[in-house]
C-alpha cells in the first residue's frame, strides 16, 4: 500500500488563544472595559449613584461640580451624577431594544432573499431603495409622530426603519457565501433549505452583521438621545441622556455641566461599542 495514513497539517494553537489575542489589542480591551462598566451601571444604578436621581432640593439648584455633587446639580437641585448614572439603564436598554429586533428581522429576511433571490429579492430591493433614500432620522421622526412620543413607540420606529440595513448587509453576505462550494455541497447532500440557510450559510455570513450591530448600538444610543432631546423619546422626569442635555440647554452659559456630562457619557459608551466591534471582526473570522 503506497498510500499511507496521512497526518493532518500542524494543528494550530489552543482554541482559547483567539480571545486572548483579541484582548491583547488595546482597543478591544478598552472597549470591553467601557462596556463592562456601562453594563454594571445600567444594571445596578442605585448601587453606584450617590443620591436618588429624582430627589428635589430647592435649596441647592444649579450648583457647580463639587465634592458633594461631582457633576453639580440641576435646576431642581437634583444630583446630576446620579441622574447620568440612572440614565445608563434606559440608554443601554435603548442600545439593545432599538437594535435587537431590527437585527433579528434583518438577518432572517436578508438570509432568505439572499438564498432564494427571484421575485422576493426584487421586491426587497425596491423596499430597500425606498427606505434608504430617506434620511434615517427624518423617517424615524415621521414614524414616531404617527405613533406618538414615548420609548416603546421609538423602539418600534427605529426597528421599522433599521432592519433594512441589517437585511441588506446579510443578503450581500449570503450571496457571497453561496459562491462557495460548501453551499452547493449542502444542496447536493439533499439538506433542507432551512438547514443550509441557518446552519451553513448563516454562521459564515453573520460576522459583518454582528460588527455592524455593535456600531449600530452606538448609533441607537445617539438616535435615542436625539429623540429624547427633541421630546419624542424618553419623557421627563425620566433620566435619559438626551433629556438631560435638553434640560441643561437653557442654562448652557451658566450651568454648562448639565449638558456636558451626559454628552460625555454618550461619547464614551459609543466609543466602547465601536472598539468592541473592531475586535469582534477578528474574533469571529473563521480560520484558514
Amino acid at each position: 500500500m503506497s498510500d499511507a495514513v496521512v497526518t493532518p497539517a500542524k494543528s494550530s494553537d489552543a482554541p482559547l488563544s483567539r480571545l486572548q489575542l483579541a484582548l491583547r489589542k488595546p482597543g478591544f480591551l478598552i472597549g470591553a472595559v467601557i462596556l463592562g462598566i456601562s453594563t454594571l451601571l445600567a444594571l445596578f444604578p442605585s448601587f453606584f449613584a450617590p443620591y436618588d436621581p429624582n430627589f428635589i432640593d430647592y435649596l441647592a439648584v444649579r450648583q457647580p461640580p463639587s465634592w458633594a455633587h461631582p457633576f453639580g446639580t440641576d435646576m431642581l437641585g437634583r444630583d446630576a451624577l446620579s441622574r447620568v448614572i440612572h440614565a445608563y439603564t434606559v440608554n443601554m436598554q435603548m442600545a439593545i431594544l432599538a437594535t435587537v429586533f431590527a437585527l433579528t428581522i434583518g438577518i432572517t429576511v436578508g438570509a432568505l432573499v439572499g438564498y432564494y433571490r427571484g421575485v422576493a429579492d426584487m421586491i426587497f430591493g425596491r423596499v430597500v431603495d425606498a427606505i434608504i433614500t430617506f434620511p434615517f432620522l427624518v423617517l424615524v421622526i415621521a414614524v414616531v409622530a404617527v405613533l406618538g412620543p414615548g420609548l416603546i413607540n421609538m423602539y418600534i420606529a427605529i426597528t421599522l426603519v433599521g432592519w433594512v440595513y441589517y437585511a441588506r448587509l446579510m443578503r450581500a453576505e449570503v450571496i457571497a457565501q453561496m459562491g462557495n462550494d460548501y453551499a452547493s455541497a449542502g444542496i447536493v447532500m439533499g439538506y433542507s433549505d432551512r438547514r443550509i440557510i441557518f446552519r451553513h450559510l448563516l454562521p459564515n455570513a453573520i460576522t459583518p452583521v454582528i460588527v455592524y450591530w455593535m456600531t449600530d448600538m452606538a448609533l441607537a444610543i445617539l438616535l435615542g438621545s436625539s429623540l429624547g432631546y427633541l421630546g419624542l423619546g424618553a419623557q421627563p422626569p425620566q433620566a435619559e441622556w438626551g433629556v438631560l442635555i435638553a434640560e441643561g440647554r437653557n442654562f448652557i452659559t451658566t450651568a454648562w455641566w448639565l449638558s456636558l456630562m451626559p454628552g460625555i457619557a454618550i461619547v464614551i459608551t459609543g466609543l466602547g461599542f465601536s472598539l468592541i466591534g473592531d475586535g469582534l471582526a477578528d474574533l469571529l473570522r473563521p480560520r484558514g
Partner: protein
Amino acid sequence: MTDHPILEVENLCTTFSRGGTALPAVRDVSFALGKGQVQGLVGESGSGKSVTLRSILGLARHYGEVNGSVRWQGQELTTMSEWQLRKIRGREIAMIFQEPMTSLNPLLTVGTQLTETLKAHTDLGRRARRDRAIEMLDHVGIPAASSRLGEYPHQFSGGMRQRVMIAIALAASPKLLLADEPTTALDVTIQAQILDLILKLADEMSMGVVLVTHDLGVVAQTCDTVSVMYAGRVVEQGDVRQVLQTPRHPYTEGLIRSVPQDVPPRTQLYSVPGTPPSLFSLPEGCAFAPRCQAASEACGSARPTLQDIAPGRQTACFHPMPATQEDAA
C-alpha cells in the same frame, strides 16, 4: 553553447518572517544560465520555486530577506539599489506571471501599457513606439494588431491576455525572461501555443528563460536544464533528458512516476505518501526523509548537500537511485 553564463545564481537563500518565526522559503539554490538557454524550476506548492524567481529580480526583498548571490552579466543584483534594479527590470530582465488578468492594468488600453513600457526602456519616439507596439502584438500572434491597440484587457481572452503580457515583457528586447507558471491558468491547446511562442522568441532573440512550473510535461517540452525543488531546496538538477529519464533523487522519481503516463489504465498509481512539509515545521535532516522509502537513519539527522554525480548533474541524497542505462526500456 558553452560561452559565459549570463545569469549565475549562487547559494540563494530567501527567508520570510511570519509572526516572529523565520521561514526558510529558499535555501542554497545555485544554477547558471547561458544565452538562449531555458532553465526550468519545478516543484510542488511551497517548494520555493516562485520565490526563487522573485528573488532574482529583487521582488522578494519587499517581504523577505535575500542572501547569496545573483550575478547578471557580471553585475551583482542582490546588493543593487532599488533604483539601479529598476533600470535592469523590464529592459534587460523581464518577467511574466501566472495570472494575466491581474498583472495588466484594467483601466489602461493595451496599447498604452505597451507604449509605456517602451517609453520607460527605449529612446523611441512617439510614432516609433506605436509602430513597435503593433509589431510586438503581431509578433506574439494577436490578429489585427493595429486595431486592438485601443482595447482594454477585459476585451481579450485568457490566452490573448497572456500574449499581451508576453508582448509587453518582450517589448524592450530583454536578454532574460523570468516566467512564473505562464501557462497554468490556460487550457492545454492554448498552453501549447504560448509555450511554442516563448521558445520561438527566446530562440530568435537569443534570450535566456527561467521557467517556473509544476508540470513535468511542460518542463520536458521546453527546458534544456531543470532544477527540481522540494521544501525550499534543490534536490536534483541537470540536463532535462537525464533528470527525467534517469532521476537519481527519490523525490524526482516519485514526481515523475505520479504522472499517469505509460502505466496500465485503472491500476494504482505510484504515489509519494504524505504531504509536503510546512515551512513552519521542517524535519531536521533531509526534508523528504519522512516521505521517502529509501530513507535511512542518517537521513533523519543530517541533511544531504547537493553533490556532483555526473558532469553537470547534481543530486542531494544519501541514497541516490541507481543510475540505470540511458536507454532504460
